[in-house]
């Protein structure tokens, strides 16, 4: 518990405002004699200070604090806790649930991000073909994105309902309980060929794929709007030139649209990676317990369970820090590998 008083002394908020008041009074006293650069310095800091104070209080110090308490043994509000160094991380490395959550999250990212970008590109290209009713189509594709995930997850849960769900009627699979089927889809697909896959290689469970489909439905509209804006910023001369060279529709998309759209796709890939890695709401609403055999447990959900169900703040913080490192590593990797293939227009 030693860490808390140390940290808490920083937080009577008036401590932020008291020096500010002092500076203001001084400034008011000698405003007339101040050179231009001092006035700029004064007002610059006055304007930045509230936002900076907020960032320091709620983002920057807490991040460091998370790192700090991850080094303690079972830090919570009850009882003593002591410094144990990297022990939480050591436990984490051997925690099967953590690896389960990580591989689930990996599959989630690997599915939703590319599918979201490809579908989004297809729809955006079609919408960009000077069609009628553009506004209507765009609205329909966009509405899921502004719909609250909680409500959307409730609707999809109803669609996936084993007895009365719409999907089972549509596919004529009565009684199939989508959200409680823990078998991996790759494993299921390869089973008829006599290949038995286990664990990670069996792929995401049917339940998790159902959640992924719902997620793609939810954020597709965002991708479409961004890609449409990207498409509209491609100068038409390129297409005219390609037409003169006798390029067909497909060739135009392949050799003009795709490369010139790559900065936008790259942006979406990064944003998608970071966002997908933190997936929580739809999983929590559709499978509150993390599914059968934890088949839909994600890293964010595991963190929530550890921190706020089991009140093990240290372990949850170690999880959070690890998550940050993984996202950071993946983003850097993505930058290194993908960005080479991005064509920035001169």
């Amino acid at each position, binding site marked *: 518990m030693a860490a808390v008083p140390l940290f808490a002394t920083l937080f009577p908020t008036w401590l932020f405002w008291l020096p500010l008041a002092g500076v203001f009074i001084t400034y008011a006293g000698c405003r007339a004699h101040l050179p231009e650069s001092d006035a700029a310095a004064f007002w610059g800091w006055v304007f930045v200070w509230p936002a900076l104070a907020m960032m320091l*209080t709620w983002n920057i110090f807490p991040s460091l604090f998370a790192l700090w308490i991850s080094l303690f043994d079972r830090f919570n509000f009850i009882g003593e806790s002591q410094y144990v160094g990297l022990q939480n991380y050591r436990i984490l490395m051997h925690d099967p649930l953590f690896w389960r959550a990580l591989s689930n999250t990996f599959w989630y990212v690997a599915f939703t991000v590319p599918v979201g970008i490809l579908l989004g590109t297809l729809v955006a290209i079609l919408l960009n073909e000077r069609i009628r009713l553009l506004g209507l189509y765009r609205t329909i594709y966009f509405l899921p994105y502004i719909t609250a995930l909680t409500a959307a997850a409730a609707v999809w849960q109803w669609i996936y309902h084993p007895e*009365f769900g719409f999907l089972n009627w549509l596919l004529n699979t009565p009684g199939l309980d989508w959200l409680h089927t823990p078998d991996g889809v790759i494993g299921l697909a390869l089973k008829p060929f006599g290949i038995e896959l286990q664990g990670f290689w069996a792929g995401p469970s049917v339940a998790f794929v159902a959640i992924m489909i719902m997620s793609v439905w939810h954020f597709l509209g965002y991708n479409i709007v961004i890609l449409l804006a990207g498409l509209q910023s491609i100068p038409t001369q390129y297409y005219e030139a390609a037409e003169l060279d006798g390029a067909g529709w497909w060739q135009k998309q392949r050799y003009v649209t795709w490369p010139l759209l790559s900065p936008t796709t790259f942006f979406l890939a990064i944003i998608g990676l970071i966002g997908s890695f933190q997936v929580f709401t739809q999983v929590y609403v559709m499978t509150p317990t993390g599914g059968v055999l934890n088949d839909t447990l994600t*890293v964010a959900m595991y963190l929530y369970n550890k921190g706020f169900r089991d009140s093990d703040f240290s372990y949850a913080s170690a999880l959070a820090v690890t998550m940050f490192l993984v996202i950071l590593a993946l983003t850097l990797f993505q930058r290194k590998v993908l960005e080479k293939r991005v064509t920035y227009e001169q």
Partner: protein
Amino acid sequence: MSSSLRRLISRLLIYLVLTAGAVVMAFPFYWMLATSVKSPQEAQQAAPIWFPERIKPVNWKVAARLGAEGGSRWWGGFAPGRSVTLHIKADDPSAGEPRSRIPKPPAAFSDPRSESTKIEIERVADGWQVVLTNTGEQTFTTIPLTVWIPKEAGEFSAELPPDAIRSQRGYWRLEWVNASPGLFGYLFHNYREAWHAAPFSRYFFVSFFTASMQVLGGLLFATMAAFAFARIRFPGREAVFLLFVATMMIPGEVLLIPNYILLAKLHWLDTFYALIVPWLASVFGIFLLRQFFLSLPQDLFDAARIDGASYWSMLWRIAFPLAVPGLITYGIFAFLGAYNALLWPLIVTQSPEMRTIQVGLQAFIGEAGSDYGQLMAASTMAILPIIIGYFFAQKHFIQGIARSGIK
């Protein structure tokens, strides 16, 4: 000729793909709305019911008449001294006597609704008339009704379709959740039930208050900081800006636990402070508005400076009015984020009075059980404010998103 034919086909193909996609995208919304006006029996069918009884105008007319008899044409009700008459047609009404009852809520000690209601069943030429009369002093908002019809009576049809039909020995058991609904009371029955099943008005208040405060505070802080970054040269600017950029790297999950501990130490858990204060500064908002301020011509500010304007008045008199589109974009984003958030309010609130609409809905999903009509009604209510807002400010939504993507 063949090239124009090919053009036509390709156009058709484009529309076909787009429409197919749009159907898939829009279907969950349709399904939510359709289920929200279904009775439990309609919702729980193996084959989906595309048009529930409650959206058919023929039934609205009957519902309005029954509502007018019991109370009001729109919201129905059952006032003292009023009688409601429901016709049920049957092939052979003389074959047997129907029975009728006002169902009591399960485990109720006493039920004034059934005790003060007199039920009479009269035989008429083509069937029966069920007449309910309120002999008590109380006004009821709804009056449920169950009627048993002998199976020997053959085919039957009630003027207001029953919400459930079940077979019970020699009888058909017809159930109405409300025999005097009125037009809206009929159509929005599930909405009204859901609204009273949980304190949704409080949930909405908490959500709107939280989101509005976040927007107002966020706008103030972001405008000031963005202006400083864009238009004032002050020592340390680059360093602070770099610090802000660096915070974008931190995923929100890292902050959950330390911020929770901090709020606990401040005794702010389960208060509005916990919902609002941690979200007041937004790097996204600062970046967005900074771009706006950077795009304004420098001459404007030089001229103001020569005229003796201070930075304070430059910000609020010149830069602020010109950045209104950016402010709206940021405002919409901040509101949307606050209104749709689940994880953070779930963590920092405990009491039902402090639940936002998303947390309330999440709790309701657990409590509503198998009443999918009410659940979908509650979901519809939860997303309605944002959808309405979208139709009013469509352009800002779309442009705002597009702007967030182009750097």
